[in-house]
C-alpha cells in the first residue's frame, strides 16, 4: 500500500454530508459514553483499578460473544458478563494484590471463552470483529435508548455516592473510622464500573476500553488536582476522543478504535508535557514556618 492509498483508507471525506446523518445515533452514543467514561474514570484512577477495567472488559466480551452466538441482545450479554466479573472482583479482591492476581487468572479465561463463542458463530464477520475493536454504524434507536438509560442510572448513582466514594477512595482508613461503608461502596462502585465497561465496549470494543475509561482521566490528573476541574476535563477529553474519532472514521474503511485511541493518547501526551512544566515551574513542596 502506498502512502496515498493509505491516506485514502484512513482519511476520506467524500460524501461526508450524506454519511453524517446516518451515524447521528453513533455520535450521540459516543457523547454519552464520553460523559460516562470521563466521570467514572477519575474514580478508576483514584482507586487504582486500571487493570480491573481491562479484566472486566474481557469478560464483558465473552458475554457479548455468547449473546451473539445464541441470538440474544449483545448489549445485554455484555452487561451480564461485565457485571458478573465486576462483582467477583468487588467481593474477592479487596486488596490490590489479591485483585490483580484474580484478574490475571480470570481475564484469559474470559477472552478464551469469547473466542470460542465467536468461532462457533456463523453470522457476519464484522459483528465478531466489532466486539473487539469497536464499530460505529450499528447503533439503532433501541440500542441508543438502552445505552442512554443505563448511563443516566449510573450517573445518578455516582452523584448520590460522590462524597463518601471520594472519601473512601482517597482515604479508606479514615473513611471507615468515620462510619463510611467502605466495603459496600467498593462493591457498588464495581457494579457501576461493570455497566460502564459494557456500554463502552459497544463503541470502542473490548480491547480498547481503557482509552475511554482510563486515558482521559489520567490525562486530566496530570494537569490539575482540583477535584471538580479534574472531572470536567476528564469528561471533555473523553467526549472529544470518542466523538472526534467517530467523525474522522466516517469516510475511511478502518474501524473507529484507532482514531479514538490516537486522539486520547495525543491528549494524554499533551497533558503530560503540560503537567511536567507545571510541577517544575513550582516547587514540589511548600515549606512551612515552624
Amino acid at each position, binding site marked *: 500500500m502506498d502512502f496515498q492509498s493509505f491516506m485514502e483508507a484512513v482519511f476520506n471525506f467524500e460524501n461526508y454530508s450524506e454519511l453524517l446523518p446516518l451515524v447521528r445515533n453513533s455520535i450521540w452514543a459516543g457523547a454519552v459514553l464520553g460523559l460516562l467514561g470521563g466521570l467514572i474514570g477519575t474514580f478508576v484512577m483514584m482507586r487504582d483499578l486500571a487493570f480491573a477495567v481491562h479484566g472486566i472488559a474481557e469478560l464483558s466480551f465473552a458475554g457479548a460473544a455468547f449473546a451473539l452466538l445464541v441470538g440474544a441482545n449483545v448489549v445485554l450479554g455484555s452487561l451480564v458478563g461485565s457485571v458478573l466479573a465486576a462483582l467477583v472482583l468487588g467481593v474477592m479482591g479487596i486488596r490490590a494484590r489479591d485483585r490483580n492476581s484474580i484478574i490475571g487468572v480470570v481475564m484469559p479465561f474470559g477472552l478464551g471463552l469469547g473466542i470460542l463463542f465467536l468461532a462457533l458463530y456463523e453470522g457476519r464477520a464484522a459483528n465478531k470483529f466489532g466486539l473487539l475493536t469497536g464499530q460505529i454504524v450499528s447503533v439503532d434507536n433501541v440500542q441508543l435508548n438502552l445505552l442512554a438509560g443505563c448511563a443516566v442510572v449510573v450517573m445518578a448513582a455516582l452523584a448520590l455516592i460522590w*462524597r463518601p466514594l*471520594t*472519601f473512601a477512595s482517597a482515604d479508606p482508613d*479514615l*473513611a471507615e473510622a468515620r462510619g*463510611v461503608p467502605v466495603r459496600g461502596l467498593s462493591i457498588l462502585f464495581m457494579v457501576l464500573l461493570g455497566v460502564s465497561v459494557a456500554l463502552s465496549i459497544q463503541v470502542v470494543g473490548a480491547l480498547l476500553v481503557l482509552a475511554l475509561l482510563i486515558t482521559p482521566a489520567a490525562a486530566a*490528573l496530570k494537569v490539575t488536582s482540583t477535584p471538580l476541574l479534574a472531572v470536567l476535563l476528564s469528561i471533555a477529553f473523553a467526549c472529544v476522543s470518542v466523538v472526534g474519532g467517530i467523525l474522522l472514521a466516517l469516510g475511511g474503511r478502518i474501524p473507529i478504535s484507532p482514531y479514538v485511541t490516537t486522539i486520547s493518547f495525543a491528549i494524554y501526551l499533551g497533558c503530560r508535557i503540560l503537567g511536567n512544566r507545571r510541577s517544575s515551574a513550582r516547587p514540589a*513542596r*511548600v515549606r*512551612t514556618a515552624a
Partner: protein
Amino acid sequence: MSAATGPGGLGRAPVVSLRNAGLSFGERVLWEGLDLDIHPGEFFAVLGPNGSGKTSFLKVLLGLQDLGSGTATINGGPLQRGNRGIGYIPQQRPFAADTPLRARDLVGLGVDGHRWGVRLRGRGHRDTVDALLAEVGSSSYADAPVGRLSGGEQQRLRVAQALAAEPRVLLCDEPLLSLDLHHQQAVSGLINRQCHEKNSAVVFVTHEINPIIDYVDRVLYLAGGRFRVGAPEEVMTSEVLSELYGSPVEVLHHEGRIIVVGLPGTAAHHHHPAGEV
C-alpha cells in the same frame, strides 16, 4: 489526676471507660481484665512492642473491632463505627502523586465526607475548612495537591481532619511515625493543644514515648499479654518493664528522655523502631 477535674464542667465523667475488657486472637491473649477510665483533658499514651495489641486497642475504641470480653463505653455510649465526637489520626500513609485532591479538599472530606450526595452549600464549608487549615498552620499550602506535600504537611492535615469532628476524644495511631523531628514536634504540639487547652481526651498509640514525654499524663504499657497503667514515672521503670516482658529490662533517664535497654531481641528501644520485638 489533675486532668480529671479540668474546666468545662465535663471533668468528672470519663470519656472512655473500659470494664474488665479483654481481647484475644484465637489462643493468643493480647490483654484482659483491663479496667480503665480516661477523662477529658487527659493525654493518655498506649505503649508496647509490635503485636502487643496497641492498634487493636484503638480499633476497639473506633468500633472497628469487637471486645473479646468485658464492656466499654465512649462518650457515655456504646462503641460503634462513625461515632460522633471522636477524632481519628491514622499513621502517615503517602498519597499517590496524582490524587485529585488539594489540601483543602482532604480537610473538607474530614468535615463532611461521610455524607451522601454532592456538596452543595459552598461558602459555609469553605469557611470551616479555612479555619481548620489556619488552626494547624497549613494555610500556606491550602491549594497544593496532597500528593506533593511532605509527610509532615500531610500529617498536619490529618490533625485538621480530626479536629473537624470537634472531638471530645482524639484517637491517634502512631501519628508521628516517619516524620522528621521538626514535624514530630509540630504535630504532637497540635495534639497536645487540643488536649490541654480544648479539654479533649487524647489516646495516643506509639512505640516511642520521647516525642510526647512532656505532654503525657498516663501510660498504658502492653507487653506479653500483660499490661500496666499509671503515670510515666511509675510505669517506665526497670522493675515494671522487666516484669511485663518477663526478662531483665533497664530503663535509663537522660536529659528528660527515657531510654529502654535490653528489650528482648533488641539493643535499645530508643530510636530503633526497626529493632522492636
